[in-house]
């Protein structure tokens, strides 16, 4: 599947890695919901690192829709929370 790291690009990931990534992803969600900014940054860093390590980057010329999307490395907890709010990523 294709995963986009916002502001960075896309990588192609083998489905076999999803279990490992899911754990971090769930952790990230829990930290976001509990408002643990420090933990959120640490887990986001680990998750992005794992995606970069396990995936093959797609060429810049490739225009494929992403199945999963991750916030950019410098995204704050509030920004991500806002993105996931009812308004979603596109205001209005």
């Amino acid at each position, binding site marked *: 599947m294709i995963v986009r790291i916002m502001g960075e690009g896309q990588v192609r990931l083998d489905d076999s890695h999803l279990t490992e990534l899911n754990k971090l992803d769930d952790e990230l969600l829990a930290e976001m919901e509990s408002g643990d900014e420090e933990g959120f940054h640490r887990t986001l860093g680990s998750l992005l690192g794992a995606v970069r390590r396990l995936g093959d980057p797609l060429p810049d010329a490739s225009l494929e829709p992403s199945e999963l999307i991750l916030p950019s490395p410098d995204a704050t907890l509030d920004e991500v929370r806002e993105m996931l709010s009812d308004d979603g*990523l*596109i205001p209005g």
Partner: protein
Amino acid sequence: MSGVMKRMGMIFRAKANKALDRAEDPRETLDYSYQKQLELLQKVRRGVADVATSRKRLELQLNQLQSQSSKLEDQGRKALALGREDLAREALSRRAALQQQVTDLETQHQTLQGEEEKLTLAAQRLQAKVDAFRTKKETIKATYTAAQAQTRIGEAFSGISEEMGDVGMAIQRAEDKTAQLQARAGAIDELLASGALDDQSGLAKDDIQSELDRLSGGTDVELELQRMKAELAGGSSSSQQAIEGGTGQSPSQQQPQDTPRFDKQ
């Protein structure tokens, strides 16, 4: 999966039909990547400048030390000429200490020079890459815009435009989904029929096999008939073929090359 990744992906997809998202617009993404590359290039260039500045500072220090060193040497020479060997010894020992510093600084200078050369080369390579990326990016953006315009024209023609609202879009999506499912079903049927896919029920393959068996069985009967006819009609011609050196083939031997045979898949 219920984490952040999935939820962000779902939101993107849910909203994508209403508006083209900035982060998912490849043109924006390309521009952003280009911007990041430029920033990186800027950082590398700043690095080169920093190293060059340090190198210059070292060169100045080296010059100062060297002039001090030659001054001490002169002083030692003069002291010796005046018969002050103690003074001359002092000057020379100070000079020796300076020389040690000079050697250390020279080593540092060489290291910095090497770093500078490496960084300069890296900056040049990066510059070339960024330039190439810019060209490629503009080409892709133009292609994407053209494709998008084409899609809009197509949508306008078929009446599926944004003005049709969500209902129209929902119908269109349902139709697309149906067509996709139909195409998929058709493709699966074709694959099963060709034998590329195994039918788990085993029925389709049996049908094909029985048809193949029937056809190949019929062919065998035809072949047998032809062989017998040939035997009856040409007893003398077969001996003629034997005399001619065995290069000729009997009709029954030739037949398999001319008649298509069915192999099991």
